[in-house]
């Protein structure tokens, strides 16, 4: 059973979002890191890059696959988690504690389209 945290929002492509004011912190879920296997590289955008809801903003590379990351919100990247450059395995260790990017949202109403913890749990149970 994968871990799911209350109070966060979830996309169908297994990203989680924590909203604090106009800043959205984005990462991938425990389910996603399990599916990927040992992550060897996290391809992240740079600070000040634009991200668009539903569009690819980076990728997770593991020994067996490369999986695109899709942005759950639109906006500008304010921070990227530099620790993941040297230690991509942190995502496997704790997918919720190790966020990937922080985004200043251009349209906070986009959050409404995301799932809550309960709905996401149902998705991953299938």
């Amino acid at each position, binding site marked *: 059973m994968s871990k799911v945290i209350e109070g966060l929002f979830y996309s169908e492509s297994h990203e989680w979002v924590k909203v604090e004011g106009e800043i959205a912190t984005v990462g991938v879920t425990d389910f996603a890191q399990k599916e990927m296997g040992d992550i060897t*590289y996290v391809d992240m955008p740079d600070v000040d890059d634009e991200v668009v809801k539903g569009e690819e903003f980076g990728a997770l*590379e593991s020994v067996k696959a*490369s999986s695109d990351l899709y942005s759950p919100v639109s906006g500008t990247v304010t921070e990227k988690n530099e620790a993941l450059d040297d230690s991509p395995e942190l995502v496997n260790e704790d997918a919720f504690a190790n966020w990937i990017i922080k985004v200043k949202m251009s349209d906070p109403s986009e959050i409404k389209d995301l799932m809550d913890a309960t709905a996401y749990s149902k998705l991953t149970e299938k």
Partner: protein
Amino acid sequence: MLDRIGAKTLDDLYSDVPADFIFRGEYDLPDAKGEQEVRDYFEALSKKNTSLKVFVGAGAYDHYTPSVIPYITSRSEFLTAYTPYQAEISQGTLRYVFEYQSMMCELTGLDISNASLYDGATAAAEAMKMAIACAKHKTRVLLSNTLLPNVLKVIETYAKYHGVELGFIDVNKGQTCIVSLKNELAKGDVAGIIVPGINKYGIVEDFAGFAEAVHTEGGVMIEYCDPSTLAVIKTPKEWDADIAVGDGQSLGIPLCFGGPYVGFMTCKKEFVRKMPGRIVGETKDSEGKRCFVLTLQAREQHIRREKATSNICSNESLLALFVTVYLSLMGPEGMKRVNDLSYGGAHYLHDELLKTGKFAEAFERPFLNEFTLKCNVPVNELQQKLLDAGFFAALEIEENYVSFCVTEKRTKEEIDSLVKVIKEA
């Protein structure tokens, strides 16, 4: 097999091919011949070949191939081994490719090498695509007009089918012009530039200020180079180039009517994830012993699909081995000697040709084993006289400009003979 799959004849296997496309003519093949007849037939054909003394370069160089190399590369373990996908049974192949990669890094001075590409021209085209992948939001790649014409043509073909816009940097007195480069860079859309370390005129180019100008605009500098010459001239690393590409033919591979040759690509560490092709890495097995694997495969198209930098998922392994054996035999001293002899011969020929009065200096620029002169006599006639006397020389690079190349294989006697034919032409 036919019984097993329920087909009556071999033709049944082609039942999906529309009738219009099936060839129903005669193949015009002769009857079978005995082994001796076949030998005689091909010997007669080979007698039609003309053997010439080669005094031309232009991308393919007549360097000496040490005799032991074909013996080593013809070993069945090397010759028939398949792609090393299964590391457990491919340590030999992976080890020699790792050595090849290490040597290309040593020659170019850059951090990472791939396992080789098809040839220099396609390696340059791959570097063009890599530049687009490395420099975000930039759409144009600049090419120097001093690159070899066949390399330019291949890059143009790849650019067309990948939707890459190309720009060109002007030539100023035989050298890539930095003023023209800066003008193009100022347009703000340049992902990278491709410039030749030794250009089509044989001139050793001066790249002072190039890398800085390109890096300031967020682009990458790609140097197209002859790896044999890197033993004695400034390396791509010393020019602060980001990517180096070229053809490994000059590392002892025979001319062979144009192929097979081998392309190489090396780059700075930060670009490794955008580099196409196979990469062999060193690691430890479960017993802690040193071993080798194909690595960083998540770059490649069988995993990354349309997001990969390239569709190439192969390398030119046997030729890469050829080059590795050559470099092992030659070593740094041998490589220096090859270039010293080539330099000496080329400069001697250059001076002797000017003395004949039939040529004039074209560019006052440094050259190594290849040079271009203005020809004051009709070029076609001169070339024919040289062919008749058994020499392949005076390649017409541009109208009335001819190029010569001298490698360590050309003796003083051969050079003097060539000059004599030209004097009397």
